[in-house]
């Protein structure tokens, strides 16, 4: 195989079997180089799914690398345990090499494809979307009410924005988001998972993958003690804060869904009392979305500099900041819904939520979808016979 990266001196493509399928860019070539070292070592097999998936291959084409990059949870365990990490001349750093490819996959499989560019300067993307969302709703309040402080309205949001207007705006955006995310995941899946000749028990695989997603199995280090943050010490905090964020998001989503049912089916109109189901779900979710992203931000701040790709900090921090803006403004709105600031708080919250929705297919949000797809591929692949057969002596 020829190297496209002149700086890569140490083992490039290390197997004699076939010429590699051409790989496209430096980030992918680097993963290919490192995986050939890993495949000859294999000490990290117990940490996560990446290495067992790697050992099923002798060569790594672009689809393999895109799949493995999204299977990697960037837990850091393999870096701290690596006998070939810097200052070793092999300079193996799988979490970092995978992270670089991972962002490329977000850009590559995004739909519509032209919007993949939004991942190149993702911090800017999120900042502009947030500004636009906030600006839009503030102007909308002014346009409808003529002032940002129309006085206390007893928590009646619809006194500011008519229900149907909100339902229409968010409905349209949400439908687009579902379409864009679905298309992106489909494009990714089709690339990494070509149709198989062997029948696969997709049900069992889906069950296993769901468990890995919902429990964040691969943030447990393989031994249940967690992943690495600032050092070779293991901690479960990243897993816990992810759970807060993920389930917080789902609770907020559930709150909105329940409220929609209340409105259209039960004909119960907002504002709902503090002890009602939508408010309880939303409050719990909001707290989760406050604690989770704050914790993740704190961990990210302290993380070992060699974990992941520092170029992606604007994407990571931007996403966390937007999540925090959504939860903070939501909780502030709940606290101030009976005051004269309600209209302003509502505009801020809706602006943040709109920015969050609009950027769902073009932000770090997508990582959960691609990772889930990669986990499903891992679970189904595991159920197929291993094509690589070492002498089992």
């Amino acid at each position, binding site marked *: *195989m020829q190297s496209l990266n002149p700086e890569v001196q140490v*083992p*490039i*493509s*290390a*197997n*004699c*079997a076939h010429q590699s399928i051409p790989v496209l860019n430096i980030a992918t070539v680097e993963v290919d180089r490192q995986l*050939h*070292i890993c*495949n*000859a*070592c*294999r*000490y*990290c*097999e*117990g*940490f996560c799914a990446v290495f*067992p998936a790697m*050992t099923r291959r*002798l060569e790594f084409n672009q689809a393999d690398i895109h799949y493995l990059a999204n299977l990697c949870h960037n837990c850091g*365990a*393999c870096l*701290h*345990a*690596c*006998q*070939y990490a*810097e*200052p*070793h*001349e*092999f300079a193996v750093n799988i979490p970092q090499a995978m992270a670089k490819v991972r962002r490329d996959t977000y850009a590559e499989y995004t739909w519509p494809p032209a919007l993949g560019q939004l991942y190149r300067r993702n911090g800017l993307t999120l900042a502009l979307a947030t500004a636009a969302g906030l600006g839009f709703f503030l102007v909308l309040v002014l346009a409808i009410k003529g002032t940002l402080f129309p006085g206390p309205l007893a928590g009646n949001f619809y006194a500011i924005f008519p229900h149907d207007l909100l339902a229409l705006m968010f409905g349209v955006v949400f439908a687009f988001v579902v379409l864009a995310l679905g298309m992106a995941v489909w494009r990714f899946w089709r690339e990494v998972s070509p149709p198989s000749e062997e029948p696969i028990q997709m049900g069992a695989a889906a069950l296993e993958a769901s468990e890995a997603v919902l429990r964040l199995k691969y943030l447990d280090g*393989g*031994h249940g*003690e967690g992943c690495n943050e600032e050092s*070779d*010490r293991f901690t479960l905090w990243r897993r816990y804060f992810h759970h807060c964020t993920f389930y917080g998001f789902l609770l907020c989503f559930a709150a909105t869904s329940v409220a929609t049912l209340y409105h259209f089916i039960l004909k119960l109109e907002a504002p709902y009392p503090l002890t009602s189901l939508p408010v309880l779900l939303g409050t719990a979710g909001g707290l989760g979305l406050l604690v989770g992203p704050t914790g993740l931000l704190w961990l990210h701040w302290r993380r070992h500099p060699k974990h992941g790709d520092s170029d992606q900090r604007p994407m990571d921090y931007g996403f966390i900041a937007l999540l925090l803006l959504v939860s903070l403004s939501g909780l502030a709105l709940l606290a101030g819904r009976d005051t004269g600031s309600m209209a302003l708080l509502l505009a801020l919250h809706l602006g943040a939520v709109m920015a969050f929705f609009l950027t769902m297919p073009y932000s770090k949000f997508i990582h959960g979808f691609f990772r889930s797809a990669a986990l499903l591929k891992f679970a189904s692949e595991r159920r197929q016979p291993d094509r*690589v*057969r*070492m*002498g*089992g*002596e």
Partner: protein
Amino acid sequence: MIDVLVIGGGNAALCAALMAREAGAQVVLLEAAPRCWRGGNSQHTRNLRCMHESPQDVLVDAYTEEEFWQDLLKVTGGVTDEGLARRVIRDSSHCRDWMRHHGVRFQPSLSGTLQLARTNAFFTGGGKALINAYYRSAEALGVQIRYNSPVTGIELKDNRFIAAHLAAREIDGVHWPAERIEARSCVLAAGGFESNRDWLREAWGQSENGDWAADNFLIRGTRFNTGVLLRALIDAGADTVGDPTQAHMVAIDARAPLYDGGICTRIDCVSLGVVVNREGRRFYDEGEDFWPKRYAIWGRLVAQQPGQVGYSIIDRKAVGRFMPPVFPGTSANSLSELAHRLGLPEAAFVETVEAYNQACRVGTFDHTALDDCRTEGLVPAKTHWARPIDTPPFYGYPLRPGVTFTYLGLRTDETAAVHFSGKPSPNLFVAGEMMAGNVLGKGYTAGVGMSIGTAFGRIAGSQAAAASGHQPTSMTVGQDHAIA
């Protein structure tokens, strides 16, 4: 004054430091390497050979004391000390709970290492993860760890340890003056001398044609095992054991880095093809036994060839049947082209392979058994897995001897004490590669280095603590294992 000074920073040193600290001693550990290279050869290890009477968490089936002993007897050809060997074997059956207590985690045998699932407990993440866990535990327990601290000499009085000397040195631009560190007792666990090129040269000598064989050796492990302390003790009259040319030596890819190539540079396709020397001639039965039982002799075999080089030759049939090598093989569509690309004498090489091909009596090829594919009338014979090398593309991998660790060490007994003219020192102990030669006079079997280092590290730590006035507690000498 420090109670226990541990010199070294690998598995044995850490085991000693942890045991001594658990016994209540104040412990200082001196690691020659900077933090990023800490752990000596232990950072490249992956498992521990363990005796067990019944299935035990990651270990299947049973591996009895007697079977372990017989394996050791076989690989060493009897050059071992039965008492010490059995001590290591028994310790290996109950040390793992203590290891877990200090953060070491185990996993089932890695893919491609099924043959070790019964005998060897693999560390989750390998040896560097083990080392990290031990260092974390040692720090948490209050062991004082000093990196960049190579000991240059030992002060002894009437066979008693008095102090260790560190030369003045420069670390990250900061000047550190020479130091003299006193302690009540001391554990030596600073490794063999495999990274000392001059010593290897001296040990292996010069051939008739003027070659220094050792100049062509690669070192699979750390560059910090220069044997300074071993030499100092030998000069001070300590009793030694072993032959300086004996070592755990395997055939590795000739393109591996000079140091720290570790596991990934090994070439596992020897038994699937033939191996020729630089003259294009075969020199040993490639199919004598399963590769995991033979890999440890091939370093020495290659070391005995002209130029200390060999070439493992396979054809397409072998691809995918062995652990993928880290460097690409040289490939060609004909044998003469392969000879040309590898820089081998074409006629001799082609003749060797053709003679081999014609001698092959192919039965039922089975790489997982000692099959009936063998050669007839060929010298040296290939007794299993002999299939003609006739399916292009052909591949060649250059081999060099890769030294893992040397066996020349300090003679010791069940107390791990360093001996002077047959008498044990009251406060100087030894563990790890510096004494492994007591158990391993020659040969090797996977994971036994870590078994020796763990057993004797633990003994040396307890003994050193006791010599400094701290008796080990019952917890630290816990005898029986519980199954996790």
